[in-house]
């Protein structure tokens, strides 16, 4: 039976009930039906009204929480907060299923916040990575003709008309080249690039209440950086170039694979690449892998992340379960390079170096100084809280590397602390930061969630040290 979001929200337990525990099971299943097959609205006014509606729903949900807070003790407040978070996430999901585009990217990031989204909901949100409404075949073949000049069945020896994966910006089909090579063909929804541009145009007026604060310019810089980043995700030519660059960083002995791109079947809106056989994280975990297998993949993930940053001078900030494949032969497959930050310019690279070296000391004063420089903060009282929380956040991010010996990534307390610090940063309106910080935070939280779900217990520091030794930072 298809439920609408209002019915789901009504069905949630009230905070005053005996058991306010949020069970995602049934709700999670029902939520899948919310992701209905509605088309992308591209008209500016229509989308603005939807976005505004979404903002209003969230504001009302939090306002309700704030009012109730006056009358409740701490435990009740905590329970009420969880309920409010959950209801808010549901409302956001309702709008995202329709808006897709930029708002759906927010939804994917939300999947990484267990505090906002309880366990059951996390699994549902993660479906956004794979279960966006598909293009029908008539639309798909017109898009392929526009881009590659012929029908899919003429271009390829075989072309599977049913997508095997879908995401916010496109969907992926299996095909076979006339040379016999099995490939994955990623095709972008027509008009999605304009949808994203419209989303961001609409976002600025919604942020206008912040324009009188001292951080307005900094906030605008961050939004502009995010806009450029997400808009770049619609440029598949750029993504193919990045993917090729990353592929060159890995060798057979790494057991890390990046699919080869076929430029003759790729354009701004289509990428054709090797098809990789493998499981995503959920399917891998469902097979009850041993601790050794989990650790082995965690080490490969560590190497992949460190290699891309320290040798490739790139930062693949779109870290979520949908972008990694656990291959049957034990190799790790890396896919999707649409949201990769390029670390450009010597000054930026040296700043990365200073930050990394300071973090690796694990010392408060060094980390504090590095965060001050990175976050563009001062010693003024208004920056004090931001600096304190940013320092703690930085320490938590680098903790697995500077604490000697194996680190237990499955430690819920560690994960929760990280999420709490991020939440405090947001709640305290500590908006001043490096323009790339939204992306960097997305990267760190993505890693936390991947490693937490893997339950990995590893010592990542030898790998990180090995990879950073190629940077030449020691001499800078």
């Amino acid at each position: 039976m298809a439920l609408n979001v209002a019915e789901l929200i009504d069905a949630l337990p009230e905070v005053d009930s005996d058991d306010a525990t949020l069970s995602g099971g049934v709700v999670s299943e029902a939520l899948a039906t919310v992701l209905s097959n509605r088309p992308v609205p591209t008209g500016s006014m229509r989308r603005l009204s939807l976005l505004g509606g979404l903002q209003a729903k969230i504001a009302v949900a939090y306002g309700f929480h704030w009012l109730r807070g006056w009358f409740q003790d701490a435990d009740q407040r905590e329970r009420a907060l969880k309920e409010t978070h959950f209801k808010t996430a549901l409302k956001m999901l309702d709008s995202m299923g329709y808006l897709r585009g930029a708002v759906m990217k927010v939804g994917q990031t939300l999947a990484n916040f267990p505090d906002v989204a309880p366990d059951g909901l996390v699994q549902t949100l993660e479906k956004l990575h794979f279960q966006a409404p598909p293009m029908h075949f008539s639309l798909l073949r017109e898009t392929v003709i526009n881009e590659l000049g012929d029908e899919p069945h003429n271009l390829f020896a075989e072309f599977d008309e049913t997508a095997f994966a879908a995401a916010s910006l496109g969907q992926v089909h299996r095909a076979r080249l006339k040379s016999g090579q099995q490939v994955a063909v990623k095709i972008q929804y027509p008009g999605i690039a304009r949808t994203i541009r419209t989303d961001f145009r609409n976002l600025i007026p919604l942020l206008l209440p912040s324009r009188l604060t001292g951080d307005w310019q900094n906030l605008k810089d961050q939004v502009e950086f995010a806009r450029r980043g997400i808009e770049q995700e619609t440029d598949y030519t750029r993504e193919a170039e990045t993917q090729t660059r990353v592929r060159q960083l890995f060798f057979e002995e790494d057991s890390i694979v990046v699919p080869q791109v076929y430029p003759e079947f790729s354009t701004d809106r289509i990428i054709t690449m090797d098809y990789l056989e493998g499981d995503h994280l959920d399917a891998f975990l469902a097979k009850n892998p041993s601790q050794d297998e989990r650790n082995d993949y965690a080490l490969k993930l560590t190497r992949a992340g460190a290699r891309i940053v320290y040798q490739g001078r790139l930062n693949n900030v779109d870290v979520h379960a949908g972008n990694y494949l656990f291959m049957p032969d034990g190799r790790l497959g890396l896919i999707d390079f649409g949201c990769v930050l390029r670390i450009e310019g010597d000054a930026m690279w040296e700043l990365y170096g200073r930050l990394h070296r300071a973090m690796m000391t694990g010392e408060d004063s060094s980390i504090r100084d590095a965060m001050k420089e990175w976050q563009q903060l001062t010693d003024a009282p208004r920056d004090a809280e931001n600096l304190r929380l940013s320092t703690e956040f930085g320490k938590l991010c680098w903790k697995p590397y500077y604490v000697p010996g194996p680190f237990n990534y499955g430690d819920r307390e560690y994960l929760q602390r990280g999420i709490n610090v991020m939440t405090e940063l947001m709640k305290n309106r500590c908006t001043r930061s490096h323009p790339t910080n939204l992306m960097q935070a997305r990267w760190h939280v993505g890693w936390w969630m991947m490693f937490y779900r893997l339950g990995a217990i590893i010592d990542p520091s030898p790998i990180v040290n090995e990879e950073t030794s190629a940077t030449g930072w020691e001499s800078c």
Partner: protein
Amino acid sequence: MRVSAKTKEATRQKVLRVSQELFNSTGFRETTSRDLASAVGIAAGTIFNYFPSKEAIVLQLVCDALENAEATFNRRVRPESTLEEDLFLYVSTGLRQLKPMRGFVGPAFETHLGPACGGDANELGDHIRTGHVEMVSSLLSKHGQAEPPTAVHLQMYWLLYTGVLAFWAKDQSRKQEDTLALLDQSIKMFVSWYLAG
């Protein structure tokens, strides 16, 4: 000298071909009947023996393109496809066939095919409209709709279709990809509305 039917048809085809070239290179407004006659190699007044106006030439080009599109659609359509897919394919195949004349057909759409032209539509405009609507009706029938669509259904469809045509004629997006998105939404809207009765 008596002109044979064969020669007359050849000249008529040449007028159409040359007009399309000149409308694209010089612009519809800027191209005069005299320019057309000169390029075809006939006397200035003779061109009116073939077409009463430049607008009539454009409408004939559209009609020919859409007839070709119908044949192409019949080759491309798949037996297992849904109603939405068939309608989308039918319209998009037509747009592909009309593409060489995208730069100058917009005004003709509005004048002769738009919903407002009503009883003032000329014979060729009626022919295009009737042919298109008959195909839509047959697709609805193919997908199990026993009752023929009512006049209201068809008027709603025609509103959406001509809206897509008008948007496409001015679509500045890369490879007119926004038109594909709009067409997809329009077809989905029509089908859901039609099936809801």
